[in-house]
């Protein structure tokens, strides 16, 4: 008997087998590597990025670190009044932000959640320079004339860095970092006005030898009343709901985009339904689903007889007709969609013919485009081949002897079709329907062109948020919702029909 374990020259057999298998696997991997890398870069990573963007929310706490960390401990109800201290923090944050212009970005970000914040931030960023900081600068530089350059500020701070000027140090570091980060820092950069205010504040509130030494410089200066100043810029700074919005969106991650995409919003006690005039996405989601189902159904009703006809033709003729089915693919999608515009518009070919034949009068021309009807007609036409092809290839495999057998057993042609042919074509129906449905649920260009306002899909809203409103987070959340809906439907389909019941040929 041969001892298999040490077969072939002393090397254990299992190791040899492993080695040869590993080589095979590596070779296989090498073959798929280009596609794998391509898919990773162009598909997996963008989808990951999209999923991340839909919850990511670092901007607010990044730009307004003091304000947000102060707000963390606050409970803001409708009677809450913003304390003075809060405005001091807001002042430091906004002063730095306005220097690097990030305050407008936070403004736009928060504006998605509460309209008006964007202009509030813009206005405040502009006016914050007039809070009287220049007087502080004058007074301090009179004593420390060297404090006009960034370098001397750094020296000054490091000499006195016994913890007395903690806030000034932090504000200065953050200011410098922000400038560098936003490419605004150069050798010519002068220390900003507000730094002197911060320094003065540190001096006043400090209880150290240095503070006492410096105190006389700043005691004569008029005290800046931050709260009054901000309220003077805009009364809205007294509105608790503004502060609540900032507070709700200070964490690094948020579910706000997702709540928004199902017509909810963050409230004081968890999610609440948006007012009726702000609700939009549930309607569009349900419309997208309804229209996709309708389009799938229309494609099935139109495609099944054609596929049946093709499958029962001799090979040569079937080929010719298949080319005709595929012919639309040879024309640009845009051209086909525009052609539907020509056909379906109010003064278009279809309406003209109906009027000419006398089916409708000139005054009651049908509205066939820029609504749901238009989208359904145009998209059914565009997606029809995706229904016909899988149906055809499945029907091709149904041998005519099945129907013959059924007839010879006494079934009428209709019964033979219904009980024998149709059930065997179901895998094709499944494949075609999944294809058409999934393609149509994410369709963009056709509904954009012929959908008007009532025939648009969720993808049109996503595109709007990505390219017009620049609310990428919401766009990403809507996209993720769409992905989730498709996966959920896929799961339901698998449960009901069985995914192995899908055949493309």
């Amino acid at each position, binding site marked *: 008997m041969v001892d298999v374990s040490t077969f072939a020259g002393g090397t254990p057999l299992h190791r040899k087998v492993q080695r040869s298998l590993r080589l095979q696997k590596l070779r296989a991997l090498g073959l798929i590597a280009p596609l794998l890398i391509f898919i990773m870069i162009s598909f997996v990573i963008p989808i990951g990025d999209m999923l991340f963007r839909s919850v990511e929310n670092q901007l607010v706490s990044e730009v307004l670190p003091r304000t947000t960390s102060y707000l963390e401990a606050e409970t803001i109800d409708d009677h809450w009044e913003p304390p003075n201290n809060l405005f001091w923090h807001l002042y430091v944050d906004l002063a730095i932000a306005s220097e690097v212009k990030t305050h407008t970005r936070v403004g736009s970000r928060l504006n998605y959640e509460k309209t008006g914040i964007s202009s509030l931030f813009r206005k405040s960023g502009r006016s914050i320079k007039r809070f009287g900081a220049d007087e502080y600068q004058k007074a301090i530089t009179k004593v420390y004339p060297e404090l006009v350059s960034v370098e001397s500020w750094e020296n000054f701070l490091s000499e006195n860095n016994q913890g007395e000027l903690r806030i000034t140090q932090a504000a200065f570091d953050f200011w410098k970092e922000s400038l560098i980060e936003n490419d605004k820092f150069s050798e010519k950069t002068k220390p900003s006005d507000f730094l002197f205010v911060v320094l003065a504040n540190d001096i006043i509130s400090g209880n150290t030898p240095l503070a006492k030494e410096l105190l006389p410089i700043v005691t004569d200066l008029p005290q800046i009343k931050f709260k009054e100043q901000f309220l003077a810029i805009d009364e809205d700074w007294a509105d608790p709901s503004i502060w609540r919005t900032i507070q709700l969106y200070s964490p690094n991650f948020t579910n706000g985009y997702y709540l928004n995409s199902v017509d909810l919003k963050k409230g004081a006690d968890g999610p609440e339904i948006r007012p009726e005039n702000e609700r939009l996405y549930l309607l569009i989601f349900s419309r997208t689903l309804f229209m996709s189902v309708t389009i799938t159904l229309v494609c099935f009703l139109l495609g099944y007889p054609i596929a049946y006809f093709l499958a029962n033709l001799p090979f040569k003729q079937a080929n010719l007709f298949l080319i005709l089915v595929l012919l639309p693919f040879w024309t640009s999608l845009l051209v086909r969609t525009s052609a539907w515009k020509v056909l379906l518009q109010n003064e278009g070919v279809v309406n003209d013919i109906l009027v000419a034949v006398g089916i409708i009068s000139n005054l009651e021309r049908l509205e066939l485009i820029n609504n749901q009807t238009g989208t359904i007609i145009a998209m059914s036409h565009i997606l029809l081949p995706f229904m016909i092809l899988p149906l055809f290839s499945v029907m091709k495999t149904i041998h005519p*002897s099945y129907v*013959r*057998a059924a*007839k*010879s057993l*006494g079934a009428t042609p209709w019964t033979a079709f219904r009980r024998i042919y149709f059930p065997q074509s179901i895998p094709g129906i499944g494949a075609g329907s999944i294809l058409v449905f999934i393609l149509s649920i994410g369709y963009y260009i056709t509904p954009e062109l012929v959908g008007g306002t009532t025939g648009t899909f969720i993808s049109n809203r996503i595109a709007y948020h990505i390219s017009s409103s620049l609310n990428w987070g919401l766009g990403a959340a809507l996209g993720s919702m769409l992905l989730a809906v498709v996966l959920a439907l896929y799961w339901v389909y698998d449960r009901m029909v069985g995914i192995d019941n899908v055949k493309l040929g």
Partner: protein
Amino acid sequence: MPGQDNGFVVFSGVQKSYDGKILVVKDLNLSIAKGEFLTMLGPSGSGKTTCLMMLAGFETATQGEILLGGKPINNIPPHKREIGMVFQNYALFPHMTVAENLAFPLQVRSMSKVEQEEKVNHILDMVQMSSFGNRRPGQLSGGQQQRIALARALVFEPELVLMDEPLGALDKQLREHMQFEIKHLHERLGITVVYVTHDQTEALTMSDRVAVFNDGIIQQLDAPDTLYEAPNNSFVAQFIGENNTLAGTIEAFEGDFTKVRLDNDQVISAKAVNVSEVGEKTLISIRPERAETEEGRFPPGTQLISGEVMEFIYMGDVFRTRIKVGNNENFIVKSRNSPAQTRFQPGEKVTLGCLKEDCRALDYHTVAHEDLT
């Protein structure tokens, strides 16, 4: 022609053309008696399947009439003909279980559930597949599928069952086994069977009568033994069983027999089957087992033909000796494996003996080899 009024199935002057130019079936006249097992045998493209399809109703006759039980059925759609049919690929409905397949013909006849179940169980018993009712056709072996296909064609008790090469997809052993089963079912149920095949062994073992088709025409319609032993023409002689041919020219007629000069100038006697005049070319058909190489075993009245051994093939139970006779290098003699049998060496001269009754002078008509498959 067979009587056209008393047959259970009658083809009368039936013609079929698909393209309007070529007749696939040319003037078919055939009468099948009730309870008969008739096989349509022929090479592919000979028109046999077309005939079956016309009978089943899936093809229409271009001309002529088909009668079933005395009634013309040309205009009756297939589902009203009450003819059971077994298809070449079985055509079991893949989305139904075996029991559902069998119940299908009963359902479309609106039979009660109880009755359906009874009949399905009965027919499953008959084909010895009782425990397979809940399986899907895809889970059955070829032989089992074949039995279910057979059962399904029988379950609604048709008087006529058509079978289109039903055993073609089975391996040899199973095929032989199924041949007997079909034969026994036919005997037990007393149904009429029209069976289409290109396998002559199948045709010979199962049938009451065999219709040999070629070129859209029935070449010969006879019982298997007659067909084998007394073929009417060269096609049938070569298509049924193994056959040796010797080409020659008619020299003279002597009653039922004729003198034929072979191409090696020997003159032998042969039964005149379809030759008519002196000087005509002919093919003499001799079955391999009717020629003898052992002189000691020559029966009285043997005629001698000289030849040369080309090859000796040992096949276990029999020997095949390939002999060159005249221009024919493929004259086969089949002999039983016995100690007395000479095992020839290639190149040996040999004398063949055969009775003149076993030599049949037929029309001079060669059949290309591929036509026979």
